[in-house]
């Protein structure tokens, strides 16, 4: 193994660790919301620092590799993709922490009916699965799986679009949960972004493995061989 290979291996393992941590953050956040588990929500907020430090570590790894090894071709694409993936993961980490913060902000348990009607739990599951699948796609060089993100993001968009009216109905129906309903609305707005970031990450995975740039391309071109 060359020196560059071992540096790239460290970079890859750092990014995979960061990825797993962020996936876990989202999962715990969902559990905290479902069970109104304030302890767990606090843990998610606290762990946000760890996510941030991974981002700094990966930035530094990449800077060193550029300066010392001048990577080309697939190596260069890995370093460029890692920079952008870690940036997106950090933003997903922020979202996980913000959603957990909203849980802490609630003064009473969330009414199950509200969670059901606004589809926030379904949305949370889809967002979690999307991010977990980008990790799998990267780890297994599965660009086909990465390409599924473009369609799956649409489901999150739909839930987000429908949310305003549904939350309004909830406020009317359960006026004692008005504040919680508004918190749910805020969470939905945040979670919608996880879909966009999973899409960004998918684009980087495809760039890395196939040397294709899909950013700002039309939907049909993106889904390509799906």
């Amino acid at each position, binding site marked *: 193994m*060359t020196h560059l290979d071992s540096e790239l291996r460290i970079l890859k393992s750092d990014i995979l660790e960061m990825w797993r941590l962020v996936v876990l953050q989202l999962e715990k956040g969902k559990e905290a919301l479902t069970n109104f588990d304030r302890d767990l929500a606090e843990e998610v907020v606290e762990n946000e620092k760890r996510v941030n430090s991974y981002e700094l570590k990966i930035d530094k790894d990449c800077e060193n590799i550029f300066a010392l090894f*001048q*990577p*080309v*071709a*697939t190596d260069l694409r890995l370093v460029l993709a890692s920079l952008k993936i870690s940036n997106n993961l950090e933003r997903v980490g922020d979202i996980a922490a913000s959603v957990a913060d909203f849980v802490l902000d609630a003064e009473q348990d969330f009414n199950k009916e509200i969670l059901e009607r606004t589809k926030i739990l379904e949305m949370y599951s889809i967002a979690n699965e999307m991010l977990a699948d980008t990790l799998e796609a990267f780890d297994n060089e599965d660009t086909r799986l990465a390409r599924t993100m473009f369609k799956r993001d649409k489901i999150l968009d739909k839930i987000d679009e429908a949310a305003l009216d549904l939350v309004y109905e909830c406020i009317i129906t359960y006026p004692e949960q008005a504040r919680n309903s508004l918190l749910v609305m805020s969470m939905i707005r945040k979670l919608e972004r996880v879909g966009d970031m999973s899409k960004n990450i998918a684009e980087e995975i495809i760039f890395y493995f196939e*040397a294709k740039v899909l950013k700002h391309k039309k939907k049909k071109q993106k889904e390509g061989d799906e």
Partner: protein
Amino acid sequence: MANKLETIDVNLHYGDFHALKGISLAIPDHSVTALIGPSGCGKSTYLRLFNRMNDLIPNTKITGQVLMDGEDIYKIKSSKIDHLRRTVGMVFQKPNPFPKSIFENVAYGLRVNGISDNSFIENQVEKTLRQAVLWEEVKDKLKKSAFELSGGQQQRLCIARALAIEPTVILMDEPASALDPISTGKIEDLIFELKNQYTIIIVTHNMQQAGRVSDYTGFFYLGNLIEFDKTKKIFTSPSKRETENYITGRFG
């Protein structure tokens, strides 16, 4: 852009050794093409096709076509070979100035070509020393021996000497591999300047250098041209696995 140089299915044998295997390649005018590949891959042999320097090696057999401006340079009369070598300048790995003064090194090519007009020669010497970004460093010591210059200056003198007879093509065989980083940088900047007026082919073992100076890159391996493309493409997403392995240092 028109093609200045082109080879069509060129095979070259040194005795039994098959050094170039069916190389077809077109090199655009006013561009820099880098040839890369491991030692013995055929890149220097390929470079020497264009000034017929391989002819000087015994038992060399060449088939196929080597075109300059559309004319097969292996079909020209032997009396025209000198003319060919005037239009194709060459710079070698180690600076090889003549044991003469700085001025005479550059003037030499003009004198052997029968030019005796001293004011023309003086103008040409200054012009090409300026082109080679050496004038400011040597203008006060033109009568001094070329050997008093540093290695990097000697190499730029050799480039000035090649430019003096106004070639259209410049072949460079590892022109900076014996130089320190500052001199290497100057040679690379010079190559960048010169491509506006000349067609340049450079053989280099330094891949970052190929990336920095060239518009096109050809990767040779075992006498085959594995891949030829824009340099940006070769160094970001080469089409062939062998190229990828070579440029990323995972060769063999």
